[in-house]
């Protein structure tokens, strides 16, 4: 069901990444990012490819795969793409849709400016990435 702008802003307010934003700030976010839809079995991030974008999942599920092996699943509220963009290197993993995906997209070159404009989002992102680092460090060799 296509959401109205109001419904989209309502949904954004329920996501952890945007939990600290006021309503006008949420509207700014909704204005800067574009809604996209991907069918099942589609790669959104591709290992080794340039030009990655930043995505926030609104609905659906994706798998994070390295060399064909599934490592993690991401769903509503999760984000991806920022690592490649911030490091300036292609992704080391594929992100493949497991179900129809509805996501917000921001072009790679715009991410840094976006994070500067919305430090609260950046802080939430920082916490999520810190958690990923803790989890990554727990993997056994």
């Amino acid at each position, binding site marked *: 069901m296509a959401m109205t702008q109001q419904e989209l802003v309502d949904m954004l307010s329920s996501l952890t990444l945007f939990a600290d934003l006021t309503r006008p700030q949420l509207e700014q976010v909704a204005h800067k990012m574009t809604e996209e839809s991907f069918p099942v079995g589609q790669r959104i991030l591709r290992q080794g490819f340039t030009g990655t974008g930043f995505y926030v999942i609104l609905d659906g599920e994706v798998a994070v795969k390295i060399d064909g092996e599934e490592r993690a699943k991401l769903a509503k509220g999760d984000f991806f793409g920022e*690592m490649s963009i911030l490091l300036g290197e292609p992704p080391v993993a594929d992100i493949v849709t497991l179900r129809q995906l509805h996501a917000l997209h921001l072009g790679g070159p715009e991410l840094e400016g976006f994070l*500067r404009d919305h430090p609260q989002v950046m802080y939430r992102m920082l*916490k999520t990435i*810190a958690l*990923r*680092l803790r989890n*990554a460090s727990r993997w056994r060799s």
Partner: protein
Amino acid sequence: MPLNTHDKAAALAGVPLFAGISEDSMERLAAVAGEQAFGAGQFIVRQGQVGTGLYVILSGSVKVLRGADELAHLGAGEFFGELSVIDQQPRNASVQAAEATQVLALASWDLLGLLESDPQLALNMIKGLVARVRSAGEQHRH
């Protein structure tokens, strides 16, 4: 030799983590940064301890250890301990001086205040973390 605030600011400015930070933020950090020295083999932080801040290596080098596993080797200009600042969880690794090492210690509460008001610092920290996640992931593949 103890460093004055000006020298500390200069030392911090050379660290990639603080690249592009406003002068004002740098002054504030330098004013509260504590200098510490460790001999070879001494532990700077221990796994499981409650973290109180992050450390910037001024000179020397350190080993990052979990149990007997050496996870990383860090040198001058690099930093460690930031995870606990961000998520207030206990240290997930120990850090031991590999040689005579001098560090600047920045307390969590000072840093947190700055993170929320200085987007450049947060951006630098995210980039640092992201690089670490990637290398941690790569370690796992070997």
